[in-house]
C-alpha cells in the first residue's frame, strides 16, 4: 500500500517537473539540425585546434582528412570523449553504423560532460 502511494507521489512530481519545463524549452529551442560552425573555432590549444580542423573537414565532407585530424587528436589526448564522438559521426558518414554506435558507446564510457552526453544520446537514439 505504502508502495503505491509513494510511487503515485513520485509520478505526480515527475509530471509536474515536465509540465513546468515544457513552455520554457519550446520558446527557446530553435535548435538547428546541424551546428553551423565548429564549436572549437579559435581554440589555440593542440586538442582544440585539431578538433576544430576535424569538425570543419567533417562538415565539408572531407572524410579522410577528418580521419587524419582525429587520429592526431587521439595521440594528443587519447581519452577525450569528444574525439570518439566525432569518429562515430565520421563512421556514420561512411555508412558504418555498427562501428559508429560502438564509438559513441566508447565516448560514453570516457566520462563526457553533460552537453556531450546529450549529443551522444541523440546520436545513439538516431542511429538506433
Amino acid at each position, binding site marked *: 500500500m505504502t*508502495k503505491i502511494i509513494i510511487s503515485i507521489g513520485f509520478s505526480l512530481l515527475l509530471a509536474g517537473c515536465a509540465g513546468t519545463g515544457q513552455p520554457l524549452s519550446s520558446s527557446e529551442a530553435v535548435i538547428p539540425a546541424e551546428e553551423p560552425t565548429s564549436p572549437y573555432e579559435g581554440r589555440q590549444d593542440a586538442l582544440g585546434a585539431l578538433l576544430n580542423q576535424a569538425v570543419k573537414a567533417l562538415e565539408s565532407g572531407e572524410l579522410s582528412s577528418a580521419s587524419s585530424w582525429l587520429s592526431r587528436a587521439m595521440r594528443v589526448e*587519447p581519452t577525450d570523449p569528444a574525439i570518439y564522438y566525432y569518429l562515430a559521426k565520421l563512421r556514420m558518414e561512411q555508412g558504418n553504423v555498427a562501428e559508429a554506435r560502438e564509438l559513441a558507446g*566508447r565516448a560514453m*564510457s570516457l566520462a563526457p560532460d553533460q552537453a556531450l552526453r546529450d549529443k551522444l544520446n541523440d546520436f545513439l537514439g538516431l542511429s538506433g
Partner: protein
Amino acid sequence: MSFLFKLGICGLVLVLAYSAYLDSVVTQKFEGKKWAIPAQVYARPLELYEGRLLNPKELQAQLKRQGYQAVRTARRTGTFSRSGNTFVIYSRAFHFPDGAEMSRKAKVVFAGNEIVSLNNADGSALPLLRLDPQPVGGIYPASYEDRILIRLSQAPKYLTKALMAVEDQRFYDHWGISPTSIARAFIVNMMAGGLVQGGSTLTQQLVKNFYLTNERTLTRKINEAIMSVLLEVHYSKDEILEAYLNEVYLGQHGRRAIHGFGLASQFYFAQPLKELSLAKTALLVGIVKGPSYYNPRRFPERAMERRNLVLDVLAAEGIVSQAEVDRSKKLPSGVVTREQVNTSAYPAYIDMVKKQLREDYDEKDLTSEGLRIFTNMDPIIQRYAQKSMTETVQILETKDPALQGAMVVTSAQTGDLLAVVGDKRPGYVGFNRAIEAQRQVGSLLKPAIYLTALEQPARFTLTTPVKDSPIKVKDGKGGFWEPQNYDGKSRGEVSLQKALTHSYNQAATQTGMALGIDNVLKTMRRLGINKPLPKYPSILLGAVSLSPMDIASMYQTIASGGYQMPIRAIEAVVDAKGQPLKRYNISVKKAFEPAPVELLRNAMGQVMREGTGRRAYWSLDKNIQVAGKTGTTNDLRDSWFAGFTGNLLAVTWLGNDDNSPTSLTGSSGALRVWTKLMQQIPVSSVKSLSSNRIEYVWVKPETHKLADMTCEGAVQVPYIIGSEPREFDECTSPARAKARTFFDSVRKWFE
C-alpha cells in the same frame, strides 16, 4: 681448312649465344639492384604543443638524432638553438600522408618537463608543431632486407677517389676488365708466393656481388669477366660506380649482411655516410678487400694498419695532402661498439612492420618503388624501453648470465605499437623474442577467469568470497592436477579481489572450475588471444605458450575498457605519388561491457597498490594510478608483467632461451623492467570508466558486507548496480542501515 672455318663459325655463334644469355642475366641483376629503391620507414613524428610532457634533454637528443644541427641562432631549416629552457627550432618541411607540413621557425619554452609555451618565432600563435619524422630504416618489401641507399653525389669527398686509388686505378679507362691489372697482380702474387693483390676491377667486384655464393672456379671467373664487359657496354661508369657503392659487401651482423657504404657507415660509426671524416672513409675503403679479415671490431690493429695504408696511397697519389694524411693517421678508428650502433637501428620493431606489411597489404601494391611507410614507433619510448630492459638485465644477469628479455609497448587506448624490444642487447638482429618467443604465461591469464566471473554480477562481485582451498581435478590427460599456492598455504575463503591481488592459484582454479573452463576460454578469445588454447584445467594457471605480443593483445582489450583492437605498427603506407595504399580492413570491436571491465581494472589497480605488483610504487609516483598483473611460471622459468597506465600499456618478459629456471618471479624481474620504463617517461593515471551501471559503495571487503565510511577497514568498492552486498556489517550504525534499506526499496520500485 673449311672444317676449321666451320668450327670457328660454330664457336663464334656459341660464344655469342652464351654472351647474349649472360647479358640478359647481368642486366637483369643490375636493373634489379639499380631500381630497387627500398621503402623508407619513418618513426612517428614528434608533436610539440603546450602541455606536452617531455624532458627538454630528450627533445635535444631527438633533434640531434634527426640530424638537426645545434647552432647559436637558428637561421636555416634543420637547425635549432637552445638557451636554458627555451628552444628555437627551424623545422624542415615534410610531406605527410595527410598533407604537407611547412617549414616553421618556432619557439618552445619548457618549465621542468612540460612545454609551457609554443609560438612561431615572430610571436604569432602556433597550437601545434609537427616535426619531420625520423627515418628508421629501409625495407625492400619484396625480400624484406634493409639497406641505406646512397646516390653517387651523396658520397663523401674522398670515398670514390680512395676506392679507385686502392681497388681500381684505371676504373674510368678500362672496359670492365683490366689486363694490365691482372698481369700486375699475377706478377705480384708469383713473387709473394700467394694471393696478395687482386686484379679485379670495381666492375668485376660488382658482378661478383651479384652472386650469392663465393666459389672461385675458372668458369666463374670467365663468366664474371664477360659480364663485366657487358655491363660496361650497357651502363655509364657513374651508374656502375653508384651500384657498386650500394652493393659491395662490407661486413656481417648475425644473419644480416652489411651491403653498401651507406649501411656500413651506420654499422661501424653510427653516422650518416656523408658526415664521415677522411680517416673513417679510409677505414671503410680498406675493409672492402676483406670484411672479415679486416673486421675493425674483431681485429682493430689489422684494420688500422690497412686504413693507414689507404691513407698513404691517397697521399702518394696526391689526392690528399701529406699533412692531412699524417693528421688522420693519428686519429682513433672511431668504430663504435655494437650497442652504440644499435641504438639507432630498431630491428625488432622493423620485424613487426614487415609482418604487418605482409598481413595487411596487397603484395602487388608493395612492389611499386618509392614507397614510404609511416609507423607508430615512438622513438623516445623505443629508446627508453630498450634502455630499461638492457639496464635491468645487466643488474640481474650477474646471477644468470644467459638471461634474456622482451618488451612490447603500445598506446593503451588505441593499440598503436610504440616500441618493441626483442633482445637484451640493443639493436640485436636475430631471434625476436617479442614476437617469436613462445613461453608459458602463468598467472597472466587470471584476469580472464575473474572477468568471466564479474560478467555474472548475480554470482560474483569484487568482494564475493571465493574458495582458496586445495582442489584436485582431472587434468584431461588421464591424471589428476592439484595446484598449490605460491607460498604453499591455503586461505580457506578470500574475496575475489584479494584472490587476484595476491594471485592465489587455488582460488583461481576453484573459481575457474566453478565458471566452467569453456566459458573462461571464451573470455580469453574475446580478450584477443587468437592462438589455440588447450582445454585442460591447467590453462587456468597459464599452462599455454604465448608470445609477449599475444599478451599485449589480450591486455590491450582490458586497458582500452573492453574494446578488442589490432596492435598496429603501421600508420600508413604511401606510394611515390603520395597516395595511400589500400589496407585490409581492420577495426575496433567492442568485446565487453564497460561495467565488468571497470571492476577488473579496479582489482588490477589493487594488484599494484597492495598485491604482487606493489613493488612498482617503490619508484613510481603514488598519485599515479596504474593497473597490471604479474606472471611467474613453474620453477621460476618465466618472469612476466603486463600492465598499463592511462596512456601506455607495456608487457615485459624475462627468462632463459633454453627454458632453464631463473631466480625471478614476475615481481622481482619483469615488473622491474616495466617500472623502470614508466618512471622515465610521462605517464598518466588510469581513469575509471564511467558507466551508469556502476556505483561505489562503502563496504568491509573481508566480510562482504555494507559498512559506514567510519567503520574500521571500510573502503569504497565499485559494484554493478544491484549486485552490492545486502547485509550490514556489525560496525554499521542501525539508523544508517535502516535509511539505506529504505532508499534501496524506493529505488527498486523504479527499476
